[in-house]
């Protein structure tokens, strides 16, 4: 596994992905569309589904408001009350929170030091879409590995976009 460096697209570095995020095509399209709709502000949302060995399966997404009115072009924050509601509604459908997504308007689709410092959901995926001049570019995903603040790391993971809806992992 490679831990990546923040700030720039690591195009020259080899990326070895053993982790995986599986997401149904319309959900993938929806989170990318969300990033264009809120441009030039950052969008944010929650990925729900199941965690299983080797990855996470996303079976629904929930769009959230960005509460960072003071700096929405380069910061995001999800209201915990919204998160509690999404968690409760997901639980009723048999889904858990498996990750989050947000956009980087006019920035690369790579985690920043701010993303890293503010990431506390170990074992979850953090999906980032770069948006340049209003158009969604690359979407990438990083798993927050480790078990506490001292050993956490973002690790690249591949995104498998599935053409068919997915149920629970076997």
């Amino acid at each position, binding site marked *: 596994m490679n831990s990546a460096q923040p700030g720039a697209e690591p195009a020259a570095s080899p990326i070895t992905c053993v982790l995986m995020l599986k997401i149904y095509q319309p959900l993938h399209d929806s989170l990318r569309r969300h990033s264009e709709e809120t441009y030039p502000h950052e969008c944010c949302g929650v990925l729900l589904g199941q965690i299983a060995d080797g990855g996470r399966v996303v079976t629904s997404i929930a769009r959230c408001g960005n509460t960072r009115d003071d700096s929405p072009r380069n910061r995001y924050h999800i209201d915990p009350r919204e998160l509690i509601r999404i968690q409760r509604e997901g639980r009723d459908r048999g889904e858990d929170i498996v990750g989050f997504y947000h956009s980087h308007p006019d*920035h690369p689709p790579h985690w920043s030091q701010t993303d890293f410092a503010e990431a506390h959901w170990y074992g979850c995926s953090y999906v980032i879409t770069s948006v340049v001049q209003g158009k969604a570019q690359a979407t990438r995903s990083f798993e927050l590995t480790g078990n506490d603040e001292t050993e956490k790391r973002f690790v690249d993971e591949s995104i498998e976009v599935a053409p068919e809806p997915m149920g629970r992992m076997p």
Partner: protein
Amino acid sequence: MLKIQIPTPLRQYAGKQAAVEVKGSTVAEALNSLVRLHPDLKRHLYTDDGKLRAFVNVYVNDEDIRYLEKEATQLKENDNISIVPSIAGGSREAGMNSRSARTLIRQMICPTVCCPACCCCQ
């Protein structure tokens, strides 16, 4: 009984349960009851000096305890307590100034041309 909702990343320290039933008349008592049942949770919720970690939000029903009586908040039978690690971030590095941000944007739009005045950036 009170129910404490456990977020996905902390369930491995709570017997893989999504919710744990505890007793207590205040938030502090309920959380103490939780970490007595599941001691591995303690270092994830509290700092070494016993304070709730800054990124750990605790809600009683839909209210942030910071705006109630914090950990002294009184609880009623069947209250629902949620532990919610914060979700935040953003593209700009702490300390990145607007000039370096503009340079980064130029490089994304026009990676091969040395600005300041190429066609992409006018």
